[in-house]
Structures are given as structure tokens and as C-alpha cells.
């Protein structure tokens, strides 16, 4: 089976108007269709900036992003974004949130109704679908955040720290769901600080530090080639032990 490129990033540079140095410095990267791609790096490395550009939230200062399978410069109907923040309405219940964001994705009322039930059930939120989210635990909120990002069945899903601050049960449920989603052909691009989780989940990773890609490739190959027993060791090998606050 041939591997098709899904996203091609060329010489991507981002400089914020208030910054003195480029946050991203000439990033070149290819993400293939069906990848579970981890963008890893220390704090301030540029992970969120990169994912924000890929989603169309930010404009690059230089360089380009091509979505190989799509005609549009940014195929908003085909990408899903799950931000690090709980970007939904806690005063509403999960069903009402999915109805709202589903409509904003351009889905019809009928489609939203059909998908809402199944997504919430799979994510373990079926019993609380009519309860206000402001009564939920952190793990439940993370799952609602994820449900909103996939209501329109995107072919590319971006996740920014999707498991931060959740309990083990929720983390396992989220990763299990993402693996299932990936087997249906969804390309997953995610950032995380949890290196053990990334090692287990990602088949491809790119390690970013100070706006540059330091290493990239298949997770297993990178560990073997750099004689690292796990991603944590590889991470320290390339980024050092100094604080990055």
C-alpha cells in the first residue's frame, strides 16, 4: 500500500509582532495520510504555534502548508481541532454543544442528531448528555472537547494536549477512541508533554525545540537509531536538562 502525503509543510516561519525571535524557523515536514503524528518539545518550543497555523488559526509569516488531498488552501470541512482549553459552553449540556458546533461545521440537524448519540456513547458521556457541563469532572470535559472536534468526521484531526489534567481512566478512554478513529483512516496530529503516552500512541514524531525541528521520523526508528530506551531519554538527549520556562 502506497503512503500518500497528507500535509506538506514548506519553510514555515512565524514571527509574532511583539517577539524578537522567530517562534518557528523554517519548518519542513511531511505528514502522511493515516499517521498518528506527535509534535513534541519543551515549553515554548513552538508546538501550539505550529498546530495553530496548520488549523488556520494563525497565518504563517513565511512558507506554506499544502493539504495534498484537498483543493482548498484550508479544508475546514475536513479538519477537526481539539484545543488545549475547554473551548465550549459549560452552561449548556453536551448535546446542546454538539448541536451548536455541528451546525457551525455545516452539518444538518438530522446528521447532528444521528452522530451525537453515538459519539457521546462511545466517549462514555451517554448518561450525562443532558446535564450541564459545568458539573463535569476534568476528564469528562476533555471528552466533550474531543467529541466537538470529531462531530463532522474530519479526515485530519489536530489535538493540542488532549489528555492534560485528566485521570488515568479518561486518558485510556481518549487514546483508545483516537486509535479507533485512526483505523478508520483519520490522520491524527497531536502535541503532548506526556512522552510515555506519545511513545505508545504515535507512529511518527517530530521533536521541536526553539522553533526548529531537531529530529523527526518513525518513533521506533528514532529510538533505535539514537540508542534511547524511551522517548524521555531521546528528548533529554536532544533538548538537554536546562529549564525552558
Amino acid at each position, binding site marked *: 500500500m502506497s503512503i500518500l502525503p497528507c500535509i506538506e509543510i514548506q519553510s514555515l516561519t512565524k514571527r509574532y509582532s511583539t517577539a524578537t525571535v522567530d517562534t518557528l524557523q523554517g519548518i519542513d515536514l511531511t505528514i502522511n495520510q493515516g499517521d498518528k503524528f506527535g509534535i513534541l518539545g519543551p515549553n515554548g518550543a513552538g508546538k501550539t504555534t505550529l498546530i495553530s497555523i496548520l*488549523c488556520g488559526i494563525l497565518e504563517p509569516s513565511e512558507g506554506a502548508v499544502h493539504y495534498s488531498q484537498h483543493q482548498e488552501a484550508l479544508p475546514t470541512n475536513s479538519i477537526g481541532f481539539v*484545543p488545549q482549553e475547554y473551548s465550549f459552553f459549560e452552561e449548556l449540556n453536551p448535546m446542546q454543544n454538539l448541536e451548536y458546533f455541528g451546525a457551525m461545521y455545516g452539518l444538518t440537524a438530522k446528521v447532528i442528531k444521528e452522530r451525537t448519540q453515538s459519539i457521546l456513547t462511545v466517549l462514555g458521556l451517554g448518561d450525562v448528555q443532558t446535564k450541564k457541563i459545568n458539573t463535569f469532572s476534568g476528564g469528562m470535559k476533555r471528552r466533550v472537547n474531543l467529541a466537538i472536534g470529531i462531530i463532522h468526521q474530519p479526515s485530519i484531526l489536530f489535538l493540542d494536549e488532549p489528555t492534560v489534567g485528566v485521570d488515568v481512566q479518561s486518558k485510556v478512554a481518549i487514546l483508545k477512541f483516537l486509535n479507533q478513529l485512526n483505523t478508520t483512516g483519520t490522520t491524527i496530529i497531536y502535541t503532548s508533554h506526556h512522552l510515555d503516552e506519545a511513545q505508545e500512541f504515535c507512529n511518527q514524531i517530530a521533536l521541536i525545540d526553539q522553533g526548529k525541528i531537531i529530529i523527526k521520523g518513525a518513533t521506533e526508528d528514532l529510538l533505535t537509531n539514537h540508542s534511547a530506551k524511551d522517548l524521555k531519554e531521546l528528548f533529554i538527549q536532544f533538548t538537554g536538562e536546562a529549564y525552558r520556562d
Partner: protein
Amino acid sequence: MYKFRVAVKKEFLILLSDKTGLALMFLMPLLLVYIITIIQDSAFKMANQSSMALLVINQDEGEQSQHLIRLLEQSQLFELTQDSTIAKDAISTTLYEQEYLTAVYFPPNFSEQLKQKANLLSGTLLAEVGMNEGSPALQTIATPTLEYYHDPVLQESYSISIMNMIDAYIKTVEGELLINEMCQQLELTEAPAKLREAMANNQVGVKKIAATLNSKSLQPNSTQHNVPAWTIFAMFFMVTSLGNSIVKERLNGSFVRLKTMPTSFVLVLGAKLFVYLVAAVLQVLLIFTLARFTFESIGLPPLTFPSDGFAFAVVVLMNGLAAVSYATVVGTVARTREQASGFGAVSIVILAALGGIWIPSFVLPEFLQLISYGSPLYWCLEGFYTLFLRGGDWQILLPTLAGLAVFIVACWAITYWQLKRDKVF
């Protein structure tokens, strides 16, 4: 259309879930309108209709002070309590201890001095017209002075009103005295009674007519003034609710999330403005309806609606739009929810003061009157007053509506610019 409908539903549900916000939006303004109107109405009645308690300390033994006191009593404007045993230097203490708000003190030679003055004036006048032999020698006489005491907490305007009334009765006494003196000097014994009668029957009256612009009898009163004014204040106070909602959604990232969706942000913001505009119109309907149908039962004049219903609807919509547009600007520019609430609330109080909600803007210093044109509440109030007090038509409303339109467009321009800066658009 489905997107807009769902966006409106979401805003509506969020608004309904905020019970405190709803109370602030509907119950508090209602309370405000009732309380302010009752207070203003009471103040109006106190100054114009009910008798005012006045302590009289008369240390004069002459007739003129008694005459003046009789006139004050007959006027029924005052409820007099006489106590001539109070020493002059104890008046302030008595006022404080016996809880009087006002007192008037007649000095010992009040009648004598008044008579001397009348004598001098009549003598001079008759000499000038050649009816008296020689001109009386120029002499300095002590001008009689009444002393008016008031509790320092009493409003200046109230005190001035009382002093003006006393002064008017002094003028009557002086006039009568002058005529008496003139007649005496002319050795006329019968004329004063006829003259007094003639003076009493030929007083020039002043008829109060509200300069309304249509035939419908719109009666300016505390209700017509206060209900529209404080309703505008309430409409603009939604800045705390709408402003907060915008800041919250920006901070939690839902604005940013919408950027990854095939949806125009204008639709999202439009739905928000629509729901809050409906809320503003409901505020007006609720407050005005209650003012129309319940005020009478609590002794207040009921609200009289303008005759031009369409013009009224347009003014309500424009006022609502101005309020939600201002709230949108505050919500967009504020970086935190505290900023939106704090700045929003304080700015509305300032804009209300400038806009004439508390006191009419024409009493402001000239430079503040110029600044008041920048207050959206000024234009909103002008719109309502044109309809509720002046009975104005479209021709008079147009400049007001134009002023509001300029404000609304300016708000939208600032909102667009700020959202563009925040990379939301």
C-alpha cells in the same frame, strides 16, 4: 439559516442559564424605575403640593410680622409652628433637636423698620410727582431682614423655593404698607381698603403650559421623565452580561475554535447581538407596561405612551441596538471579565450622568454639555423625550436617530478592528 437559528438558540440558552444576569437585566431595573420614580414624585409633591413645616420665631411686636404670618398660613403652603420663646442663638440647636427642617426668625423691630421703609418710599414718590411739599431728606434706614434657617441636609433648590415663597409674601405686605403710607400722607382714609381689594383681584396669573408638539395632551410628570430615562440606563447596563459573555468566549478559546470551522464569525456575533437586542426590547416592554398599568395603584401617574407607535418602535430598536453595540465594544476590547464588568458598569454610570439620565444635560456646564453629545444615553434619552414629553414627529426625531446611527456604526467599526487585531476575523 439553520446555523443562525442554532447560534441564536445557544445564546438564548446561555442567557437563560444565567439567573443572576437575568435578575440584573430585568428585576433590578424594574426596582430602580419604581424607586426612583416614587422618590422623584415625592420630591415633586413635597415642593409643589404638600405643606412645608416651618418653625416661626417672632420676636417682633408689630403688626406687619403678624400680617405676614397670617398670609403664610392662609397660603396653605406652610404648616406653621410658632414659638417666640426660642432665643435667636438657640434656633440652630432647636432645629436639630426638634427635627425641624426650616425656621424663620422675625427680629424685634421688623414691623417698625418695614414701616419706616414704606414711609420713606411713599414720601419720596409723592415728592417726585409734586404731591408733597418738599422732598424728604435723604436718610439711611435699617433695612428689615428676616432670617431663614434650614437643616444643612436640605437641598439647596428646596431652600431657595421656600425663600422665594416667603419673599413673595413680604412683597405683598410691603406693597400694602406702601399704599397705606401714601394714603395717609395724602390724608385719604378710605382708599386703602379699595386698593387692597383691587390689588387682590387683579393679580397677574402665570399659566403653566407644556410646549408639546402635537395635540395629544402629554403631561410632563415624574413618570414621563423617569421611566424612559432609567429604562435606558437598564438597557445599557447589559454591558455587564453581554460584555462578560464575549470576554468569556474569547478567553475559553471558542472564538478561536470557530476559526477552524466553515462559519463566518459575523454570523456568530450577529446571533449574540440579536438575542441581546431582543432582551433589551423585552426590558422596555416589561418596564413600560408595568409603569402604564401598575403605577396608578401606588399613587404614581401612569405612563402615557406616545401616539406614534411606529416611531416609538424605531426608537426602542435603535436604543437597544446602541446598548448592545456598546456592550459588544466593551466585551471585545476588555482583556478580562473583571475589566468588562468594572469598566462597563462605571462607564455606564458616567455616560448616564453626562447623558442627562440623572439631571437634565442643559444644567451641565457648557463644556460638559458638548461632551454629553458623545454619550449614547443622551441620544437615546432625546429619542424617548421627543416622543414621551414633546410629542415630536419624525422631523424632530431624525437628528436623534442619526446621532444613534453614528454611534452604532462607530461601535461596530471598533469591534471589527479589535477582533481583526485579535485574529478572530
